[in-house]
């Protein structure tokens, strides 16, 4: 019931933000505050737990959060709109879960890039993303034929919203084409707050 309630709240917030975006381009800028990396990890854990209940168990999916940053980054800070960020991650995990093969793994990784950006990477083994798909996914409303065949209710806005949220945080959304082992990786790259400033 908590998972359902949390998901309803996210949908409500998404609608609000979508309406906000329809009247301005300020999707995630208005509510930014300084957030610790440890808070974001907690949010990832919550999302993973909700998806395990909502659909992961049903389809035999393993959904894990992997913190690869080490304890020294826990206090690192970034300027973030937590709701927009959580929505973006939710969308990435939602896609990963929906388009995964049964009994496969969905990974949520929390990493630090060499450029000292926070990286939230979601990986899955399921419907493949080609370089052409990645190019086409820039368009709002785009869905691959395979995606449309496997999920009846999608609107093709999940990646678009995630990309919007990433850019509102001065970051980017990076999609890697499906590799030879069948793993697709989608990452949010978000700059840290410079401690010197």
């Amino acid at each position, binding site marked *: 019931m908590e998972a359902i309630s949390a998901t309803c709240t996210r949908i409500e917030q998404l609608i609000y933000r979508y309406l906000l975006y329809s009247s301005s381009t300020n999707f995630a800028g208005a509510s930014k505050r300084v957030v610790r990396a440890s808070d974001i990890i907690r949010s990832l854990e919550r999302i993973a737990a909700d998806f395990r209940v909502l659909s992961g168990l049903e389809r035999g999916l393993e959904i894990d959060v992997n913190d690869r940053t080490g304890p020294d980054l826990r206090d690192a800070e970034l300027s973030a709109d937590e709701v927009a960020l959580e929505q973006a991650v939710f969308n990435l995990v939602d896609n990963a879960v929906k388009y995964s093969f049964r009994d496969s793994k969905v990974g949520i990784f929390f990493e630090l890039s060499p450029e000292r950006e926070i990286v939230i990477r979601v990986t899955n083994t399921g419907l493949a993303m080609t370089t052409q798909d990645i190019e086409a996914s820039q368009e709002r409303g785009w869905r691959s034929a395979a995606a449309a065949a*496997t999920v009846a209710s999608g609107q093709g806005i999940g990646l678009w919203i995630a990309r919007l949220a990433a850019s509102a945080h001065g970051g980017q959304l990076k999609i890697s084409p499906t590799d030879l082992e069948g793993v697709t990786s989608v990452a949010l790259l978000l700059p840290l707050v410079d401690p010197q400033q």
Partner: protein
Amino acid sequence: MKLLIVEDDTYQARWALSSLSGELAGVTVQTISTEYTFRSEFEKIAAECPQVVIIDIMLRWTEPTRDMVLPPPEIRREGAMKAGLRCAKMLTQDQRTKGCFILLYSVLDRSSMVDDLRALGPNVLFLQKSVDHDALAKTVRFLLQLPAGTSLGNAKVFVVHGRDGESRETVARFLQRLGLEPILLFEQSRGGGLTVIEKLESHADVPCAVVLLTPDDSGALKGDILKSRARQNVIFELGYFVGKIGRKNVYALYKDEVELPSDYHGVLYIRFDSEGAWRLQLAGQLKAAGLPIDLNSVL
């Protein structure tokens, strides 16, 4: 006896089944979760010929798998929004399954598919998905007790209404809860160049009609004080159904303020009270008219 559930949401299918548990003694239940599986297994389905088939309208084509087959172009064009209608069409067009009772159970708005529903014939009912699946359980109970070969044309009730949308929806929902299909003229197709009276005629093959007399108009004898009256089309349709199906099968629900039309003796007038006592009275009349209604479902 067999029940087939075609639903791609596992939780919905499970909730629906749990709400039906009291109705399913001696019934074999099969669940199918994609349109592709439905089509692949159609021969087997047709051979077994389920008594009742519950179909979600918005269905995915297939599960994501390594060897998944993409839908053919014509299905891709129509999309998932019509998947359940396509499955229902296959059942109604096959000699072995055309007598199955098909219940389309969807969150979609019925008014968006009236032409499709009409083309599917009388044994296909539409029921709006609800959180408690209560209406579903009652409808399935009703369908399971029907003898094979029964036409569901009898389960439809025409609702004549004026401008009071809230009352109209209340009555329509109540009829659905009883396992009946309300026919609302405004929901029927505007296409085909039919006039209102032609549309009325094309949907009037029903055993009963419920007429909502709500105070939408003002009128009086010349020189008298204006009184609240039902719309003229409502009075016209009341008379039409009295002539068409007999006054004993026409039930007028009236709101307190409305002036009742005179000279319609024999038509049953039921006060459309806010306490809801009208529900039991109306259900009792519909049952007495021969519609298989469990009066316990009203309480």
